[in-house]
């Protein structure tokens, strides 16, 4: 199993399935979400919903700072996280330090982290790998998209995603309703960011990136975004920002690099992101081998126990 198939499934840093487009292959595009300029306006959430005609996601006041969307799910494909912190925005305490000192007591700096989360469009995407129908597929732009005409709602991609991005829609179907004889009204399919696949096809940038007032969300060729992000990180470091780091920029990470990566100002888990995500199918060759061994053992064991020993 580790032979040809294993090689086929070896993480390479190049999105599998993408090369097959041949001449139809486009430059790989993605998002660079720079949280150091995010003003938490949520335009991305709304732009996404408007364009993709996503249903409402519930009107629940959470008490979690200004975030009432709470998470990425079937009905929110962009989600802005808000984290208030008693940490200064600048680490070196120079004159640029943000503080809300109230009485000359040295002051505790406050900062308010805001981050617009989205599907990572992984280079090696677990959701895409495990999808049994080919509903999830790698597009010619190197992105990962759920095809709504194919998805049968098996839900496998949901726990497969190391970021918790994919989610089944339990609301009534708004498009392609299930046939009446099933007696189900629920949409039942899995939905997530498509990186505005249809807009890309028309030569338009994704809705969220277009709307973003401060260009916290940048869209473009991934390679260019990575260069831009490196420069940005160096600039913030030089300016003394507290804790800047890129997340998902490196093609050598557990998912082969994100197609949509981030500049964060704190640990990923603070934003609800896994600190070291891996594509679990990375272990699949080993798992298949292991399973075949188990299956063999089952075959051998049952046979042996049947053959060796009496009928009684």
């Amino acid at each position, binding site marked *: 199993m580790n032979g040809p198939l294993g090689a086929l499934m070896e993480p390479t840093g190049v999105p599998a399935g993408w090369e097959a487009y041949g001449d139809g292959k486009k430059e790989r595009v993605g998002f660079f979400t720079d949280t150091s*300029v995010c003003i938490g306006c949520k335009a991305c959430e709304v732009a996404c919903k408007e364009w993709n005609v996503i249903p409402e996601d519930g009107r629940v006041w959470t*008490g979690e700072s200004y975030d009432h*969307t709470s998470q990425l799910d079937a009905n929110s494909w962009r989600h802005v996280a808000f984290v*208030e912190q008693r940490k200064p925005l600048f680490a070196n305490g120079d004159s640029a330090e*943000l503080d*809300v*000192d*109230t009485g000359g007591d040295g002051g505790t700096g*406050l900062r308010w982290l805001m981050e617009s989360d989205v599907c990572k469009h992984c280079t090696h995407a677990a959701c895409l790998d495990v999808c049994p129908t080919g509903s999830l597929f790698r597009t010619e732009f190197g992105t990962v998209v759920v095809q709504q005409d194919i998805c049968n709602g098996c839900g496998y991609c949901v726990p497969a995603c190391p970021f918790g991005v994919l989610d089944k829609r339990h609301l009534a179907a708004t498009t392609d309703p299930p046939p009446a004889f099933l007696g189900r009204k629920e949409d039942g399919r899995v939905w997530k960011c498509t990186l505005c696949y249809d807009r890309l096809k028309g030569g338009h940038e994704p809705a969220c990136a277009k709307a973003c007032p401060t*260009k916290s969300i940048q869209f473009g060729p991934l390679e260019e975004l990575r260069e831009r992000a490196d420069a940005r990180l160096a600039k913030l470091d030089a300016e003394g920002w507290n804790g800047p780091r890129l997340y998902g920029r490196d093609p050598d990470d557990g998912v082969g690099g994100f197609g949509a990566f981030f500049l964060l100002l704190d640990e990923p888990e603070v934003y609800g992101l896994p600190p070291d995500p891996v594509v679990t199918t990375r272990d699949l060759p080993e798992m298949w081998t292991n399973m075949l061994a188990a299956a063999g053992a089952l075959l051998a064991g049952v046979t042996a126990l049947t053959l060796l020993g009496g009928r009684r």
Partner: protein
Amino acid sequence: MPSLGTSFGRGGATTFQQDLQNSDCIVIMGSNMAENHPVGFQWVMEARERGAKVIHVDPRFTRTSAMATKHVGIRAGSDIAFLGGIANYLLQNDLYFREYVEKYTNAPVIIDEHFADTEAGDGIFSGWDPEAGRYDIESWRYEGMEVHGAAGQRGEGFEPSGEQSGHGAAGGGLQHGEPPAEDPELQHPRCVFQILKRHYQRYTPEFVAETCGCSVDDFVEVCETLAANSGRERTSAFCYAVGWTQHTVGVQTIRTAAIVQQLLGNIGRPGGGIMALRGHASIQGSTDIPTLFNILPGYLPMPHTLSYHKLKNFIDSNTSPTGWWGEFKSYWVSLMKAYFGENATEENDWLFDELPRIDSDNSAYFTVRQMLEGNVKGYIIAGENPAVGHANGKAHRLGLAKLDWLVVRDIVEIESASFWYDSPEVESGELKPEEIATEIFFLPAAAHTEKDGSFTNTQRLLQWHWQAVEPKEDCRSELWFYFHLGRLIKQKLEDSEEERDTLIKALRWEYPTHSAVQEPDAEAVLQEVNGWEIESGKFLSGYPELKDDGSTLCGCWIYSGCFADGINQTARKKPHWEQESYVAPEWAWAWPANRRIIYNRASADPDGNPWSERKRYVWWDGSEGKWTGLDVPDFKEDKEPHYVPPDDAKAEDAIAGAHPFVMQADGRSWLYVPQGLEDGPLPTHYEPHESPFDNPLYSQRANPRRQQNKDLAEDPYNPVADEPGAELYPYVVTTYRLTEHHTAGGMTRSVPYLAELQPAMFCEVHPDLAREVGLEHGGWATIYTTRSAIEARVLVTERVRPLTMKDGRTVHQIGLPYHWGKRGLITGDSANDLAHMALDPNVHIQEVKAFTCGIRPGRRPRGPELPRFVAELRDQAHSRREQEPRAEPEEVRDTTP
């Protein structure tokens, strides 16, 4: 705003949003720009990325603070102390831009000897009449000059109203182009510079820290940063919004910033200026072409009941001998021709005698009082929601219930239309549907996509929007409604012989219509606004072409040129990448004359050269003999920098070549405002109408001239400062908007995608306060004043901090967004129900950014228990106050010279 108007000549933002990218330092104060103007904020971020300092001074740590390089927390309502402190710091440490101050401001001007500062009058300027409760401004004047528009008419009881010199332009007319008495060395004890210096000398960093609750270091850092980023090579900008205006000292707060920016030499220059951030799509437009009681289009004053009974007086009094207001008559007559066409003639004084007259205050809050007193019978509301959006919502709802008839036009059924069956007062039993006599018409409105028209944005830019689809069913534009309403009324009164109908019969009211519903042609209206030569029908290219003989017609002189050459200039949509500079003059059309930075003559030095290469914008091209640059020069194109007006020069010709503020009578910006403001020539720190503190400077606690409703039962006030009973309302409350919602919520609570983003009314409190009163994060709180009580979810956050004031006293502040009401996809209590209706005297704006309240855990009482709860506390507070009533100085002190 009269603050900008009186300081610089026009009431609009002095700059445009894109120019903020050129700033070296941006102070955002009285504004939460990132949250409320997110897309405009991109230009602040551009500046930050280029290394600019971004300073946010605000009671709360907001999404703007999160983006700033420095946030300074101050007590709500202490802005003048902070800004005055900056002025003092600049003056005491010689950090001001000397040449700019000397040449371009009225710093050298000597003031009348009868003028007495607040420092002499314990918080009251000279001229205070306690009986009338207002100032006689005569002693504020320049030495040897008569204050225009005040003296002479006083016999008729004229009030010099800031509003009338208002948003657009200080009528300001002094009698001559050049002030007669000035000291170029700025040393004369009565020159503006010295008066200013003395006025603010007690605004030391320590005073600022104790009054505002910030640290000395933070304050000094702000001053130093501003000073380091102003001057020849660098410029700083101020951005403000209603965080400054919605105070009883709102106008004076902005005035203080105007003083700071003049001292720093930042007006009329790239990266400088004062950016007024308006909150509605066409709020600038609705003052330029006003739906306001006291002005006509282009800031022309409405005739007053107590003055100018004859046209000649009226014209004379409003015509400035110098500056562009010297052409007042042309503007007036052209407007009358636009209104009444051939019915307005020289012989009938252009129908002046028939025009309606106003009193000193016929503002919305005045109208509410009149409703409550039963004097107003009919009311039309179009695109506004006073039941939620105005201070003291309950008073408004009770007022609406006393009308005979009410017309509400909106996209959704707002609370102002539904109050009769679902207001809090119906819930409490104070109103009963079957007892409300008001006849109500709700008319569905057309949305912006369903009509042609222009909005004037925050930077004075008129932008045309085209109709995309037809409005459905009964939905109609306001253009349709008012046009057909007028047509019907005129039709019905066609044969009337009544004298009162003369004017309406004379009204020009013919506009072409189109489509099945007979929608009036918006461009035809814009053409009338632009104006044309009556004889030839040729469209005017600008207000210099207006005539005072009735040969031109113009609906709004400052907008003249918006349809120049018969082309809708406001509809220009040339992409910015096809334009030569970032100024992008071929995108839409800005008043005046398509200028983007006004007073831009000041971007050059007195000789006409740029102050520095880095800050080039508009300069004198000696070889061509004209002003040139990136923008349309805000100056007569060929007037050379060294031009000295001859003695007999009039109007614009009387402005010197080195004086950039062409709307001002003296061509200078005004550090000191001798006329045009109700409450003083210089801004002074006063406490908010409701505040837990006394004024640390004076025994005069609050703005003496603020408008109050002392005798109105529906508008009671909390005891304040050390008054007994004040302890029941010990906290400072400030109201605001969130990015996700718009004002009173009618346009956002009805939108599913927005409703879910901020689904419930909440309050922001500090953990210390939460502990003090037992509030639980995520639980409920009841917030109360003498007006009402509301409930809100509790967000315990350190973004709203307690401040340590003088003598170590701690003050807690409570933050309340005001978007919620009884209707919509999401509902909640309205923060404005808590607010009072005490107003700024110049512009009649309510003080919702700083007042006092109490807070306790849990939900508010329901039904009839609610008013009982409020009344019990109020009665307790008021009876305690009665035992030790205090006499406010404004009620007794007479400072008339």
